[in-house]
């Protein structure tokens, strides 16, 4: 009795509350909300995030959420264009000396910090000094330690001199080092209020941060590339993905990343087609199976090639990623300039795999279905990290496929830190399934160069190839894109032949955005790069907020 009374009481409260107050800031959605119309100022974009930013000074931040928000508040000297070439941001132009040692940036004039003070080369110098300061706890100082000398030539000219030519250097002058000197000089950067209440010069500025709830950003009307059309950008923290997906349907979130099953199944309804737009583009990430090249099984490259032939990459993509990805052929993302589409590919062919294994001396001599060589059965363990179901599923399919050519695979999932500290760093593995997220610069010296094989370094598979070493060095010493392209194309050819890793797949990013937003131009670097140009046509605007 009591219980049913409680139930009806609850319903009454709910009805009452729903009927009378609604969501006062939200106008009823217009259906169908296909954005067409002229650009107009107004409305808000609500982005859902599972993580909360910790600090909004880019050089101190380590997590994606912090960088996502800080990226809207701060700009760099340069940035990547949609074709992945470096273009000017706060720097109008720059010169690189013939020997590649000196970069001179000419800065834009008339740019102002949100508090009205002019932006000058002194701000860049201040940021540079802060990032190389011993007392700054940053993970990004490495690129800046290559700088031999930094000078402010005048208010709008900044010059850096390197010890050696260093091509990734240019991109390092992206979003990390521009800080307002007039607000931060002489202060302890880790203690200042600035980290949670920053003054920037980017398209948006922070007005309110409710911990564990949301960050509200207003557009910066004097943004140097023009006032953003959207008045507000709201970063809502919803730690649970399922909850966030419900918020999306209820109108509480406008943009979020979908999981493969949400993308391919749950959003394939009339409601979603009418009210949302889905996007899809390759992420700058690839998943691979890496071999311990010191292990006797994997020394012979024919064995690695045989394993590549025994794995069906398109099957992995269809099953693990619901088709939302591309097969990887090397450590670069398809359709970007360093990507070489012409490398050796390994079609799925168990017959070919068996043939290669036989050539390498592996044969099933005792008829138990497992190959042997010198009396040793071909049996090894794939390690991967716990909690990543994509990698676990990948490992399971590979296990099944390799069994068909006579290789017995065991799978072991380990907690991340244990995995890295006890197994990767100590080289206690036979094969691993892992992923790399790759920077936009093609330099991968740390991953493939033979000098990077010590503990805690990243060539943990112990790959050694003198030609690759030389190419890697050449690639990071030249700024000429054509020249670099040649270098990295050759590296991919060698890697595809020698297969220190089997490059498995590049998963797609799959964001969904409410259909009232127009001006979105998908590109290889995603969709949010031109957020200030997104708009909602006047008739479709939904959120209003008092200033």
């Amino acid at each position: 009795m009591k219980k049913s009374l409680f139930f009806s009481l609850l319903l009454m409260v709910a009805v009452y509350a729903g009927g009378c107050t609604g969501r006062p800031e939200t106008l009823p959605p217009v259906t169908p909300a296909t954005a067409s119309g002229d650009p107009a100022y107004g409305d808000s974009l609500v982005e859902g995030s599972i993580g909360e930013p910790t600090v909004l000074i880019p050089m101190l931040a380590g997590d994606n959420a912090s960088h996502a928000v800080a990226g809207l508040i701060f700009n760099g000297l340069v940035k990547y264009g949609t074709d992945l070439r470096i273009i000017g941001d706060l720097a109008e132009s720059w010169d690189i000396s013939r020997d590649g040692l000196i970069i001179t940036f000419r800065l834009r004039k008339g740019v102002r910090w949100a508090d009205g003070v002019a932006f000058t080369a002194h701000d860049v110098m201040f940021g540079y000094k802060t990032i190389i300061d011993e007392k700054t706890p940053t993970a990004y100082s490495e690129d800046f330690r290559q700088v031999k000398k930094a000078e402010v030539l005048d208010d709008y000219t900044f010059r850096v001199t390197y010890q050696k030519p260093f091509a990734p250097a240019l991109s390092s002058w992206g979003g990390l080092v521009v800080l307002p000197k007039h607000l931060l000089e002489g202060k302890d950067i880790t203690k200042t209020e600035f980290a949670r209440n920053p003054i920037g010069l980017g398209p948006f500025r922070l007005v309110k941060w409710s911990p564990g709830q949301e960050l509200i950003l207003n557009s910066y009307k004097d943004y140097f590339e023009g006032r953003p059309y959207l008045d507000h950008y709201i970063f809502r923290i919803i730690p649970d993905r399922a909850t966030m997906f419900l918020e999306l349907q209820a109108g509480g979130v406008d943009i979020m990343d979908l999981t493969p099953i949400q993308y391919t199944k749950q959003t394939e309804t009339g409601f979603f087609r009418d009210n949302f737009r889905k996007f899809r583009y390759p992420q700058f990430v690839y998943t691979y199976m890496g071999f311990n090249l010191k292990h006797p099984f994997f020394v012979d490259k024919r064995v690695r090639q045989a394993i590549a032939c025994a794995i069906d990459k398109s099957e992995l993509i269809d099953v693990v990623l619901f088709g939302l990805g591309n097969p990887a052929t090397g450590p670069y993302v398809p359709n970007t300039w360093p990507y070489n589409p012409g490398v050796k590919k390994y079609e799925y062919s168990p017959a070919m795999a068996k043939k290669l294994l036989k050539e390498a001396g592996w044969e099933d001599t005792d008829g138990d279905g497992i190959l042997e060589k010198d009396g040793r059965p071909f049996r090894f363990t794939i390690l991967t990290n716990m909690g990543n179901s994509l990698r676990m599923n990948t490992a399971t399919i590979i296990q099944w496929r390799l069994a068909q050519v006579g290789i017995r695979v065991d799978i072991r999932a380990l907690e991340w830190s244990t995995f890295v500290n006890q197994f990767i760093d100590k080289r206690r593995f036979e094969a691993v399934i892992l992923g790399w997220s790759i920077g936009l610069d093609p330099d991968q010296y740390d991953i493939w160069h033979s000098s990077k094989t010590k503990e805690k370094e990243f060539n943990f598979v112990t790959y050694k190839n003198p030609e690759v070493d030389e190419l890697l060095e050449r690639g990071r010493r030249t700024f000429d894109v054509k020249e670099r392209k040649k270098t990295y194309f050759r590296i991919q050819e060698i890697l595809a032949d020698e297969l220190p890793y089997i490059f498995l797949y590049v998963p797609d990013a799959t964001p969904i955005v409410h259909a009232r937003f127009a001006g979105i131009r998908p590109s290889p670097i995603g969709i949010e790069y031109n957020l200030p140009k997104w708009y909602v046509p006047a008739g479709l605007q939904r959120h209003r907020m008092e200033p």
Partner: protein
Amino acid sequence: MSVYLLKRLLEMIPTLFGITLISFFIIHLAPGKPTDIFTELNPKITPEAREKLERYYGLDKPIVVQYGIWLKRIVRLDFGESFSSDHRPVMDKIWDAKKPLIERRLFVTFLINVLSMAVILAIAIPLGIFSATHQNTLYDKITTTAVFIGFAMPSFWLALLLMILFGVHLHWLPISQLKSMNYGSLSLPGQIGDLARHLILPIFVSAFTGLAADSRFMRSSMLEVIRQDYVTVARAKGLPERLVIYRHAFRNALLPIITLVGLSVGSLVGGSVIFENIFGIPGMGQLFYMSVMTRDYPTVMGILTIGAILTLMGNLLADLGYMLADPRIRAR
């Protein structure tokens, strides 16, 4: 009485010390470090940079020394500074004195738990008594089934179902978080109404799934009590059944519930972790989860210490409540 209270309070100190010692070592035994978020498999970091970060957080010192440093600060009620990259004092994260009450994490967690406990008791006690007095009737069986369904149902699943019904289909209730985005511009009654609307689902879920223990305890202790001789005597002398149950049996049957409530104070922090994450509520449980994930030792320790103090206080209150309810204990 006051001597007893003093003694109990003093006894809490070594217990608390033991709890912090064990928690400190366990959390440091877990693989991983707070610097991992920057350094693990990040090709841009050199061994020197890694050491620099570890020195910065004092992680290069032996663990006993680290505990000593922590303990030295804690006696001055200083929880230290968070290892996450915001470097804020832990106390500010848990209880930010500059913010309104509702934005302080400890208060949010406390509020939700007190409310849900009140709801649980308000339903579980009558439910249990009724089941006991109507033992083995259809009513008893229905309530038993119902509370066990609640007990067995995963709270996250129930939460999602209710969100779909009330949030997505009916648009009656907000799905997540504690406040609407326009909360700041509402009048005071509007703000309270807004909070209440956001609290309905979390409190319902935690009450419904937590009903079983209290109501079953109430039922069995009531059953035991009404078999006692003095209840038979009360009935024999012709008292109405209502008086027999609610005046004579009820007080005695309540004793185990007091203990149960006292003990459950400690599990508040633990239980909050799950539903604060599902509902996106900015409480202490959510902070705890994030801190564990990033190995933010000072924040984890701060929350564990507060949790331990709350548990010990809960036990103490339960004992005091016991004394109030039971003259036999008071006499001792």
